[in-house]
């Protein structure tokens, strides 16, 4: 194995990892504020890809407008899901909300199976994203360069919102103590909706770029990336946004490199994230950058 191959795989891993990271941010933010593993998050990503296809083929939007429309529409879907399914259970046990989230996940998958059928659809890739670069023996699809850049831009915007805006500060306050935040006069429900909107928007962005990278979509495509992104969120430290991005990068790179170095393991690649997750939970349950959200309870 020479350096070019390692470099090549590193780039592939980086691209895959930034997709996981984008999705993981949604998990980590929702978990941070309402302590719910949003099981349907991977499926929200899938919804995003279908919205993107439809806004191109039914609304005849140019690709950039379709992307913006998709991100906004999916954010709305996320907010709606929260309002309909999770909000009534805010004060119930966490397991009840988790079961509801599983229900929502299955609902989305099966609804889209009924509407669009199980046959994978081709995702139209705009010419900008379809080229391939040859640079000193390293072959790079253009999309693999775009994805990490886009992920970093989104991360920077999000970090700015979280640190400098009123809503961001309220979100961070909420993740520490919901009741006190309410007492301070913050509109807790609006903030939670905003969190769902941001998480779903990022999932939609992740979904679009996932579909650009692997341009075949089906109603069950969100399950695997969703689960791995969750593993990434836990690895990075659930509740921490930069942690989620970091966890995503680590899982993406491990997955790609492990298969590149030991090709016979290719079939097992979907299990890596979980083995990693189990080890993280066993030895450092707070993840790399997380604080102990459970400290009060454990």
């Amino acid at each position: 194995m020479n350096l070019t191959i390692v470099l090549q795989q590193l780039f592939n891993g980086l691209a895959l990892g930034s997709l996981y990271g984008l999705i993981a941010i949604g998990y980590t933010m929702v978990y941070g504020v309402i302590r719910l593993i949003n099981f349907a998050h991977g499926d929200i990503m899938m919804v995003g890809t279908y919205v993107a296809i439809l806004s191109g083929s039914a609304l005849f939007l140019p690709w950039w407008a379709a992307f913006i429309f998709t991100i906004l529409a999916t954010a709305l879907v996320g907010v709606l899901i929260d309002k309909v399914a999770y909000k009534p259970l805010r004060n119930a046990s966490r397991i009840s909300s988790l079961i509801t989230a599983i229900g929502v996940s299955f609902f989305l998958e099966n609804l889209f199976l009924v509407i669009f059928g199980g046959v994978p659809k081709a995702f139209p890739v705009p010419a900008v994203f379809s080229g391939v670069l040859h640079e000193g023996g390293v072959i790079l699809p253009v999309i693999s360069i775009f994805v990490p850049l886009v992920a970093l831009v989104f991360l920077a915007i999000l970090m700015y919102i979280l640190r400098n805006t009123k809503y961001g500060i309220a979100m961070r306050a909420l993740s520490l103590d919901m009741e006190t935040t309410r007492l301070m006069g913050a509109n807790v429900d609006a903030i939670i909706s905003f969190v769902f909107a941001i998480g779903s928007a990022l999932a939609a962005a992740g979904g679009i770029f996932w579909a650009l990278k692997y341009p075949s979509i089906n109603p069950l495509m969100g399950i695997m990336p969703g689960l791995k992104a969750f593993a990434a969120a836990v690895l990075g430290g659930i509740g921490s946004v930069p942690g989620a991005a970091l966890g995503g990068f680590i899982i993406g790179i491990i997955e790609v490199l492990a298969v590149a170095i030991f090709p016979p393991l290719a079939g097992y690649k979907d299990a890596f994230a979980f083995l990693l997750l189990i080890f993280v939970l066993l030895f450092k349950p707070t993840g790399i950058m997380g604080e102990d959200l459970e400290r009060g309870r454990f």
Partner: protein
Amino acid sequence: MKRNQILTIGSIVLLFLFIGYANGHLNAYYIRILNNTAIFLMFAASYNLINGVTGQFSLEPNGFAAIGAYTAAILTLTPAQKEAMFIITPMVPWLQHIHMSFFPALIVAGIVTAMVGFILGFPVFRVRGDYLAIVTLGFGLTIRVVSNNTMSITNGPLGLKGIANYTNLWWSWGFAIAAMIVIMRLINSEFGRAMKAIRDDEDAAIAMGINTFKIKMIAFVTSAFFEGIAGGLLAHLITTISPTLFTFFLTFNLLIIIVIGGLGSMTGTAIATVLVVWGSEWLRIVEQPMHIFSLTIPGIPGMRMVIFSILLIIIMIFAREGIMGQKEFSWDSLFKLFKTKKVANK
């Protein structure tokens, strides 16, 4: 006390009389659904033991079912069948030549699954709550990935076919009733009370000197044992198994059953199993074209799962207790019901 035991035994005898009748008189479709009911009852009751009674929300039954099904199927297939089936990679020799009859194969399937559960218990019970759910979900997924890739043991994605159709109503209901009895007795024992204590307040249970890890492990291993046997029964009912059979979909069905029946109630689980298994057969009408007068409404394939997922969400929001909550059906309460009715009539 004695009256209740007689009534319980009486109703079990009645059930088996019905099965004897069903075996000879009902058509293959109904017998198949009755078999499914028994197998799902066994799955759901064991799943409820860990989820509802012990309160450890986990999502692994599809993994355990896969282990049980593969173990039992590999054991009952004849060496010649295995040689013919493993065309891409030959089977590991010692597995190739092993052959057993149905009953010992099922028991071995249960024991193997229980052992996997025991080993799995060490890492997973170090975490609680929703983390446990994700880790066990990951386990179910890992089992599927492994069964897809260990070509020399499971024949990979090709699956195993030609498994003898040994499962009949006697086997399935016999095991289901036996599992129910064992699980009910476990729940009413010292261990069962400790399990409920862990569900209600784990920290308080620790403070009372309960070894929570041990109790969780007992529940988990028992549940794995019966899920393994149920997996074996399932394999010998549908005669063809492949990794795609054991997706999260199976777990989701069981989850719906135990949520409808009430997390923590075995009799609720039994009622819900019947409702869900027969209800999902009845719901097939939404997937078939309907003719109302001259109007034809096209069936919508896949609609049943949409309905079930909406049902799950609605139950969780509006009727979180399910049918029975954490209570159990008992003869005493039934008699009490009649007594109060009589008083009301007067």
